């Protein structure tokens, strides 16, 4: 297998000559100056408006406030975890449904996947909260959030699993049936484990999306990290600082998960050779798919 250049590598493979090196150095100096200038202007602006004042940052160092925010973050993570588990279950059912021989089953699961994948998640979450309550269902904001996330991500994961199953060589299922395994046996023991392993990078990257989307619970008053950051901001008058801290938390968690997805992707390619993950309509997967197809 040919060694692949990492995606971050510059496509200009040639060694720079003395003049090229001088130019790059000049460009580096200019761009560093420009970046520093932007940062200085931004910092000045923040300083002028007193946003570095200690009374705005101090609350974020107090344990009581941090504890308040962190327990919100725990609720966020809990919602994401529960939704991910349910969505995986829905996803497997939908993938099997779309791959079934029975036409009505194929049609129903196809309609489910296509419909919910096309809906804005915020609309689904608001519907689960306002719509279902209006229909007399006693549902808590947390449950409505988890329901909306599960229904939506179930559709997305269904497509991911289906792509995984379709990416397997047909010989796998043929060999399984030649050994006398039935449909369910071969699915359980041969097809799904391989498909899941193959799609692991896409699944983790969808988990990043799901975790980000959990913050939408904010619009239906789930007492999550974001709502608590806003409450803190309102109480101490430090919205900017509280939201910045929240953003930092999300960035760190998601970077860690993205690292995991990349690691799985690289391991996957080393073992199986690159393959394209073709799942449309989902931004994070679009990027994964584009990179995978490029590396193939």
């Amino acid at each position, binding site marked *: 297998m040919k060694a692949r250049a990492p*995606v971050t590598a510059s496509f200009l*493979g040639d060694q720079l000559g003395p003049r090229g090196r001088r130019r790059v150095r000049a460009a580096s100096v200019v761009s560093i100056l420009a970046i520093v200038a932007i940062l200085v202007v931004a910092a000045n602006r923040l300083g002028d408006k007193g946003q570095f004042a200690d009374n705005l940052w101090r609350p974020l160092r107090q344990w009581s406030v941090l504890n308040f925010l962190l327990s919100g973050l725990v609720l966020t993570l809990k919602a994401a975890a529960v939704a991910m588990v349910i969505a995986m279950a829905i996803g497997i059912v939908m993938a099997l449904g779309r791959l079934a021989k029975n036409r009505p089953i194929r049609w129903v699961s196809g309609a489910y996947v296509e419909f919910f994948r096309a809906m804005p998640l915020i*609309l689904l979450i*608001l519907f689960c909260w306002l719509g279902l309550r209006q229909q007399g269902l006693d549902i808590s904001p947390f449950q409505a959030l988890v329901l909306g996330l599960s229904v939506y991500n179930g559709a997305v994961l269904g497509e991911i699993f289906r792509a995984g199953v379709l990416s397997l060589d047909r010989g796998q299922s043929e060999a399984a049936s030649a050994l006398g395994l039935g449909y369910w046996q071969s699915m359980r023991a041969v097809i799904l484990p391989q498909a899941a392993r193959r799609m692991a990078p896409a699944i983790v990257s969808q988990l990043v999306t799901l975790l*980000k989307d*959990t913050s*939408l619970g904010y619009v239906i008053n789930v007492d999550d990290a974001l709502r608590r950051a806003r409450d803190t901001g309102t109480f101490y008058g430090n919205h*900017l600082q509280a939201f910045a801290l929240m953003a930092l938390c999300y960035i760190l968690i998601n*970077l860690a998960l993205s690292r995991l997805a990349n690691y799985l992707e690289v391991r996957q390619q080393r073992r199986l050779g690159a393959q394209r993950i073709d799942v449309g309509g989902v*931004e994070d997967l679009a990027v994964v798919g584009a990179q995978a197809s490029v590396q193939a």
Partner: protein
Amino acid sequence: MDVVLDNLDDYLEAMRTTAILTVVSFAVAMAIGVVIATFRVSPVPPLRLAGTVWVEALRNTPLAVLFLLFFFGLPKVGILYSPLVSSLIILSMYTSTYVAETVRAGINSVSRGQAEAARSLGLTFVQVLAGIVMPQALRTVVAPLGSVLIALIKNSGIASTIAVMDLTGLARALGDSTAQPVATFAGAAVGYLILALPAGWGVGVLERRVAIKR
């Protein structure tokens, strides 16, 4: 369903708002995204770093956090825009990271010989990129960019959290005032489908038209 038909004008207006959010943000995001992708493949280290920070910071922050940070936080430093303009700015910035990553993947897909040949003809970095590599790169990533566009249509619904009257915002407001949220949300769902389906077809047509036959 009467609620939707009675307020059809409002729905059309809301669809227009959603369409504006999508189209304008996507155009701006394409422009920023191509520049950031250029930064990330450039031989200048500080620009590469700036591109990486832009992408990773924005892409890993939930859109809802960005909206709140922008809408509640920035007025404190005297930066204040209307909800619609704020939404356009945030959606453009957020989407630009996905455009940048997709375009970068496209740039890396262009075979090295192309850049090498261009270099040996004496073209500069910018000439190589703008004249030779980028046109080919953009053609290969039409489908993934289409996914980004469709995701943007859906993401634009989050603008309703800062009181933009798009489809989601309207469904919510009408649901409150008429106490028929099921019908008003169904109406919004139809509106989104009307916007997303043609977008998907359009991307498919474009993809077939610009595909490079090798």
